[in-house]
C-alpha cells in the first residue's frame, strides 16, 4: 500500500492491480465457455452423448448367467464365454426396438469380422425370430432374456447395447449406442485391434 502511495505512478498501479484481479475470473469463465462449447459440438458430431450411460462393465469378467435358446440359435451361458478362444460381440436387441432394427445392417456387415451372439431382451420368442427372418440374422448364437434380468446383471439400461468379450470371458469394450454410428464402430474396431494384439 505504502509502496503505491510513494510511487509517482500510483494511479496506474492501482488500475493494473484491479485488472489483475479480474484475470482469474475471466480465465475461469473462459475455461467454462470452452468446455461447454466442446460439449455442444461433441453432441453434434456424436462423440459426446449425454444419454450414453457409462456402465462400469469394461475390464471385468462377464457376470454369471444362463440364457435359454431363442430360435434360430442356441442359448449360451457364462461358461461358453469363458471358454472363448477368439473375441465375440454380445449384442442385446429386441424386435420392438427401432434403433435395434436400424443397427441390423451394420451387424450383418460386422458378422464377417467377428462372431456376434445375440440376446433377445424382453421379447416374445416369435417376435424376435420374426425380426431375424425379416432383417437377416447376424447372430451365431441367440439367448432369450424374457424377464430382462440377465440384462440388469450386465448393466444394460436399454437396447441396443453391445459388449466385446475377449478370450477368457473378459469384457473389454461396451457401447450403449447402436453400431450403425461410425464413431461406435471405430471404438469397436480399436478395441478389437487391442485384443487381437
Amino acid at each position, binding site marked *: 500500500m505504502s509502496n503505491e502511495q510513494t510511487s509517482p505512478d500510483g494511479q496506474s498501479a492501482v488500475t493494473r492491480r484491479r485488472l489483475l484481479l479480474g484475470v482469474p475470473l475471466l480465465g475461469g469463465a473462459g475455461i467454462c465457455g470452452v468446455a461447454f462449447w466442446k460439449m455442444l459440438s461433441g453432441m453434434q458430431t456424436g462423440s459426446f452423448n449425454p444419454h450414453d*450411460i457409462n*456402465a462400469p462393465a469394461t475390464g471385468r469378467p462377464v457376470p454369471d448367467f444362463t440364457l435359454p435358446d431363442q430360435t434360430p440359435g442356441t442359448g449360451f451361458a457364462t461358461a461358453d464365454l469363458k471358454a472363448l478362444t477368439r473375441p465375440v460381440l454380445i449384442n442385446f436387441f429386441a424386435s420392438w426396438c427401432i434403433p435395434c432394427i436400424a443397427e441390423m445392417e451394420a451387424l450383418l456387415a460386422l458378422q464377417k469380422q467377428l462372431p456376434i451372439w445375440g440376446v433377445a431382451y424382453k421379447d416374445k420368442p416369435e417376435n424376435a425370430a420374426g425380426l431375424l427372418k425379416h432383417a437377416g440374422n447376424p447372430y451365431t448364437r441367440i439367448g432369450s432374456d424374457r424377464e430382462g434380468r440377465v440384462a*440388469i446383471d*450386465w*448393466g444394460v439400461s*436399454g437396447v441396443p447395447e453391445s459388449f466385446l468379450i475377449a478370450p477368457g470371458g473378459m469384457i473389454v469394450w461396451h457401447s450403449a449406442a447402436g453400431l450403425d454410428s461410425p464413431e461406435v464402430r471405430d471404438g469397436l474396431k480399436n478395441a478389437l485391434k487391442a485384443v487381437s494384439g
Partner: protein
Amino acid sequence: MFRLKAALLLVCLSAPVMAWAVDDPSEMLPDPKQERQAEAIGAQLRCLVCQNESIEDSSAGLARDLRKVVREHVARGESSQQVIDWMVARYGNFIRLSPPVTIATLLLWGMPVLALLIGIVSAIMIFHRRTAMPTPLTEAEQARLRELADDR
C-alpha cells in the same frame, strides 16, 4: 353437461396426483417396514431411461424391473447400503441420484463453500478499497508539507 365438464376437469387436474409409478399393489412387499425401506432405496436410484427421475417415480419398464430387484434384495434382509452397492456395481455411480464425494465430484460438492468464500473475499476487497484509498500527495503537496513542518 356442466357437471360432466366439471367432473372431467377434476379428473384431469387430479391426474398428476394419481400418477403413482408403483402401478401394481402386488409389487409392494407384504412387510410395511421392508416396503418403506425399499421405497427409500428406490428414491435414491436414478431411472436410467428417463434419467432425472428416481426408479420409484418412473413408470419405465427398466425402472419397474429395478424396483423388483430392490424388493427382492430387501426381502432377503439386505441393508440399504448393500442394495445400493449392488446397483452401483452394475450401473456405476450414475445410478445414484445424489453423487458420492469423489475426486471427480469434489468441485460439485465444494461449490457452495467456494461461492461463499469468493463472495466474502470480494466483499472485503470492495469494502477495503472504498475506505482505505487516499489519493497520494503530489510532489508540490509534499514540499508544502515539509515547509509547514519546518516552520514550527
